[in-house]
């Protein structure tokens, strides 16, 4: 979205010299029609529906009844939902802290043109091809304390109560999520690194910069927008983790991995408390939008200035 704004601004500047109103060039606005209709029907209308439903009481049968702000009070004071909010924040921060350095380093490594790196890249990339449900089922089987990897290989420390212990489960979830998504973010960084002009490194080399210095003074600053993009995807994405956790732990043991999206689903489609589920949905939408807009503003990425000046 930011890129689009950026190029629009650019076009504006160029058009400034022309006579106003002369917009015959470029595709017709009508071509955006189908996309807008789809967006309206499948995103905006349901969103309004959810917002309305969050003020109603409905168990899926019969007709919804107005409940005023009752759902909101009930949801915000519910210890299960409060715990879900806390877990969501913990998981967002932890997955970011865990995935970013890993993807960044892997991405830089994969950007090298050597053949063995290309082979390894293909291997790193594999997890991205698996569906989340398949990943979750596979991990559940591997981590089974009685029949899993630990028993098969005879490694006793691997036979922990990984997904059955409230203390361990969240960290297992964090690991599996990272395992699934690090390849994607590495790919972003690989692309980012490959776009950095060689001349910058040559100049740095002439100035006597070592590999580590090159990384910190050229690679990292040049990847600024890639980092912003990847972080936005990670953090907003962590507000929507659902399928993997649902299949892996189902939110358990107890409530140890019941993050907000899961809480919303279980409230809506297990407890059939649609009003409360809608409140959680509205919260997720608002927080998700706020975080992505905030990240863009804060990082200055909305301007998306070129980093290539003088090159």
């Amino acid at each position, binding site marked *: 979205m930011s890129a689009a704004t950026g190029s629009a601004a650019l076009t504006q500047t160029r058009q400034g010299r022309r006579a106003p109103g002369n917009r015959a060039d470029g595709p017709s606005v009508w071509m955006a029609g189908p996309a807008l209709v789809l967006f309206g029907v*499948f*995103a905006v*209308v*349901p*969103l309004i*529906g*959810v917002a*309305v*439903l969050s003020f109603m009481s*409905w*168990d*899926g*049968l*019969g*007709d*919804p009844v107005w409940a005023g702000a009752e759902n909101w009070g009930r949801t915000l004071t519910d210890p*299960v939902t409060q715990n879900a909010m806390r877990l969501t924040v913990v998981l967002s921060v932890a997955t970011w802290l865990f995935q970013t350095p890993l993807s960044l380093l892997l991405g830089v490594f994969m950007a090298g043109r050597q053949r063995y790196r290309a082979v390894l890249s293909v291997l790193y990339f594999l997890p991205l091809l698996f*569906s*989340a*449900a398949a990943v979750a089922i596979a991990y*559940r*089987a591997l981590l*089974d*304390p*009685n*029949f899993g990897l630990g028993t098969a290989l005879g490694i006793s420390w691997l036979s*922990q*109560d*990984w*997904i*059955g*212990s*409230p203390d361990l489960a969240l960290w297992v979830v964090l690991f599996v999520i990272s395992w699934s998504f690090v390849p994607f973010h590495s790919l972003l960084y690989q692309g980012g690194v490959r776009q950095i002009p060689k001349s910058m490194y040559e100049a740095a080399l002439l100035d006597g910069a070592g590999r580590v210095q090159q990384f910190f003074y050229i690679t990292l600053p040049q990847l600024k927008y890639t980092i912003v993009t990847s972080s936005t995807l990670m953090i907003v994405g962590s*507000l*929507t983790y*659902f*399928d993997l956790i*649902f*299949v892996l*732990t*189902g939110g*358990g*043991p*107890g409530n140890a991995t019941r993050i907000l*999206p899961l809480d*919303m*689903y*279980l*409230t*809506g*489609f*297990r*407890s*059939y408390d*649609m009003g409360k589920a*809608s409140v959680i*949905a509205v919260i*997720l*939408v608002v927080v*998700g939008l706020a975080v992505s807009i905030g990240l863009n503003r804060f990082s200055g990425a909305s301007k998306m200035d070129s980093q290539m000046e003088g090159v």
Partner: protein
Amino acid sequence: MRLSIGRRTGAMVAAVSLATVLAACGGGNQPGQAAADGASAWALTGGSEEMFRAQFDAWNAENPDQEIAVDWFANDAYKEKIRTAVGSGNAPTLIYSWAGGTLADYVANDSVVDITADTQELTDRLVPSVAANGQVDGKTYAVPNTQSQPVVLYYNQEVLDAAGVEVPTTYDELLTAVGTLKDQGVIPVALAGQSVWPELMWIQYLTDRIGGPEVFQAVVDGEEGAWSDPAVIEATTKIQELVDAGAFGDSFGSVNADQNADTALVHTGKAAFILQGSWVYPNFLNDAPELVESGGLGYTTFPAVDGGAGDPANIVGNPSNFWSVSASAAEEDQATAKSFISSQVLNDDAVDDLLAIGTVPPITGLEDKIEQQDNADYLSFVYGMVRDAPHFQLSWDQALPPAQAQELLNNLSQLFLGQIDPQQFSDAMDATL
């Protein structure tokens, strides 16, 4: 298991709101106003799927002008879809259910029709404690359509022999057996804690043995403080006593019933006992045929509790699954569904099909038929349990309204994990009444 889930919040948000839109379009239920576009049914895959398929095939072959269109669903996917469909007036003509709280909701919303008169002949053949589950205020709104699924205490005889343990008949004997088995390095009782619902069987049986069926009836009736009944507190205390004694091993929270990891523990000899519904018996037959044939798989009723008020012959589980007839279907389609029920449901062919896969239908007078089956001993045992039970308690998560049922599973899971104590459990559950 639900594998095809919306991947992102957007999809779920859309799902929630789609439900609203559907409800708005459906405009609630308008009995009899729908056009007759043929009767339909939604049925479940797995379990007794073959019997259902045979029934619908037979019906459609005999009644080409009254064909029933059948859609097939996986268990959990069905449970979520059916409620929205019923709520929006788009239900199939034949509604499959577990009776209990859901049926009560349907009746309260006039979503299903009274079929007392049309099913009298079938009801007369049914085991009364099972038929009772389909009745609300003395009228029949649902009839059993498949086998009875009482919860049975299975055990691996070879493991018990190796440890020198006798089959327990009381709770105290069970606790002693747990200690002996644990010292031998086996898991005394396999429990699929990750699935949570198997934990329900423990609290249900213990509460019934200690206080009788009245204790839970008070909960269903919504009596103030019903969850604080001394029988519930004693049951939850005993559960934590078992957990602390290591009855379920130290990793029951990772064991999942969907992949039969709990029954696998028993037939591989890693665990001695398992308390599970009779639907797991086909798993034992398939996964460990030599154990079953050699008589190594034992089965018994849940132990009595000394001084308990409940009849040790009482059972818990799923009395059966049920068919109801949708009120939003056209009169003609309702008539089709009713004749389907009276001609096909639990008829002789269906009974034979069910017995053949190692399950018992809730029909009286089957003793002679059962004698002729393979596994006649086991089938007679289960049949006797169902026939002679003074009370057949429907699984609590089905008996309660959905919101309370989820609270129950949630708190029960925490009770087993030791995160809350019996008093906190009762307090939390009382708050849902």
